[in-house]
């Protein structure tokens, strides 16, 4: 009874500390509002994001099309709202997937040590030698584009950060007394790893996932801008800006690139503010 009270008061104290961080709260507000808009997309816009209307191409903002239309006559405002869903989904799933892979491998690597650790450490070093965008491009060539493919590629190329983090924590935590006590009780190794040590490593992982989401949203938008991310049938913030690769679009059609660019910047900024605040609360060593 006393233990649960102590645990929840620590969580409560962390939460209060987070709430006092104005920047983090601003970030949280921004993210919440934008996610809400994404969920309420059908309510906020009566247009469909993939409704091609070739007679109304490249129209500037008007009453009917709040942010104008793109090269195929699709309503930009609707595309931004529905695109928010996809961009945020990709960012979050990629980050979670990468964290999952990195945590599991890091667990075994840090706890077991030996040849497994040495090999996976080398492998992670190799992954870190290649710039992540290049790795992603290679996998896009081999696996192909697409929404799910992209999430998979992000997870497979971004596990190294979490891996190093979790491995480091496990290396130190496995020497703790309670681990020996668990063994003395006859608790199995797997159980010790996942039920006893792992919860203590989760705080920095949460911070990493938050900040990685920001990174992946930026990465997806960059790839879609280049035309190698999500194909334009499914709207994302990045592939709306894809049209702006041509200079005359930059000059004449600012409604095509300014709103999605601002949307990306605003959302990523919010995530970064929140992540920074979380890091202050959960991982004061940094």
């Amino acid at each position, binding site marked *: 009874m006393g233990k649960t009270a102590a645990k929840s008061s620590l969580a409560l104290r962390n939460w209060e500390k987070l709430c006092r961080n104005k920047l983090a709260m601003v970030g949280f507000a921004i993210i919440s509002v934008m996610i809400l808009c994404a969920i309420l997309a059908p309510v906020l816009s009566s247009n469909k994001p993939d409704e091609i209307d070739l007679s109304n191409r490249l129209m500037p903002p008007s009453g009917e099309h709040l942010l104008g239309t793109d090269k195929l006559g699709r309503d930009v405002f609707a595309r931004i709202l529905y695109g928010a869903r996809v961009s945020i989904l990709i960012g979050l799933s990629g980050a979670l997937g990468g964290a999952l892979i990195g945590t599991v491998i890091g667990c075994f690597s840090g706890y077991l040590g030996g040849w497994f650790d040495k090999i996976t450490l080398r492998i992670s070093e190799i992954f870190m030698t290649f710039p992540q965008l290049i790795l992603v491009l290679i996998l896009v060539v*081999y696996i192909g584009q697409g929404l799910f493919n992209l999430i998979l590629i992000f997870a497979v190329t971004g596990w190294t950060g979490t891996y190093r983090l979790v491995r480091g924590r496990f290396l130190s935590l496995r020497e703790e007394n309670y681990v020996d006590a668990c063994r003395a009780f006859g608790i199995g190794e797997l159980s010790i790893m996942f039920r006893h040590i792992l919860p203590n490593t989760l705080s920095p992982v949460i911070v990493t996932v938050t900040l990685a989401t920001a990174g992946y949203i930026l990465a997806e938008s960059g790839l879609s*801008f280049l035309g190698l991310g999500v194909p334009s049938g499914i709207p994302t913030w990045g592939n709306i800006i894809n049209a702006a*690769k041509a200079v005359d679009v930059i000059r004449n059609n600012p409604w095509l690139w300014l709103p999605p660019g601002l949307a990306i910047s605003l959302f990523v900024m919010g995530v970064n503010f929140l992540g920074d605040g979380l890091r202050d609360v959960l991982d004061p060593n940094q």
Partner: protein
Amino acid sequence: MLNYFTFRFLSIIPMLFLVTVIIFVGLQLTPGDPLTYLIPPELLASANFDLEGYKKAMGLDAPVYIQFFRWLTDLLQGKLGYSLVDGSSIAKMISNRLPATLELAAAALIVSSILGILLGLISSIRQNSAADYGNTVIGIIGISIPEFFIGIIAIQIFAIKLGWLPVGGRFEYADSGFIDRLSHLIMPSLVLGFSLTAALMRYTRGTMLDVLGKDYVKTARSKGLPEWKVNVKHAFRNALMPVVLLLCFRLPLLIGGTVIIESVFGWPGMGGMILNAVSAKDYPVVMITTMMTACMVLLASFLVDLLTALLDPRVRFE
């Protein structure tokens, strides 16, 4: 000292070797017949070309490990194969494009290092809570804005609206002067280095503040040294070390970032080459360019290591 440098240089070699192994494996996994990209296209297209006979003659049906070593020796001699798309020699393509990317990356590195460190230095010396708060915010905003968006905005403002700088490309014509080349280089390198500048600014400020609180700084001040000497000669040199380390970690980002920036500004470098190859599924070009990129990153971090060793007298050479 020479021992240390040689040791560091030699330790890159195993990594480089591993990279080539991975690239080779990647090349083997391509759909269709791997390693036919090594055959000059004129030969492939000619009427009585016997593919099987040629392979036997060139030893392309040997076991995989023998193929690997042959491929590696070819690589080191500069025989990089031919593009699947238009048959041009990959080595030639790289030699056309690599200098442009190196120029861009080096310019971005230099400019953002100087700018970031200088700004961080200034804001740490003139420390007050308003700058403190603003610095964090600016730092985060700096890394939140997508690079291509900054590029597009920069083009819109400086090239289209103000007309100060050209819209894109590397030069107007092949032997244009230094000023022309410089005006084409400014925007891409600044935009490429933008997030690096923001990160460096924030980090330098942090480490400088750490160092300025140390005892030896107080000692220097109490010796009566002029303030600028305390800041620059004593504090700054020690604050520089972690900053250089940060640079080392950020280098892959810089080289990866050239892909996007080259696309936005129409810069004719390796980034554009990779993009075209990926769009056209030109596997050999993708893999070989990737290998070049990895080599660039390894070499660059080696150079940064050298710099660290030179700057920090505490590093003892083992």
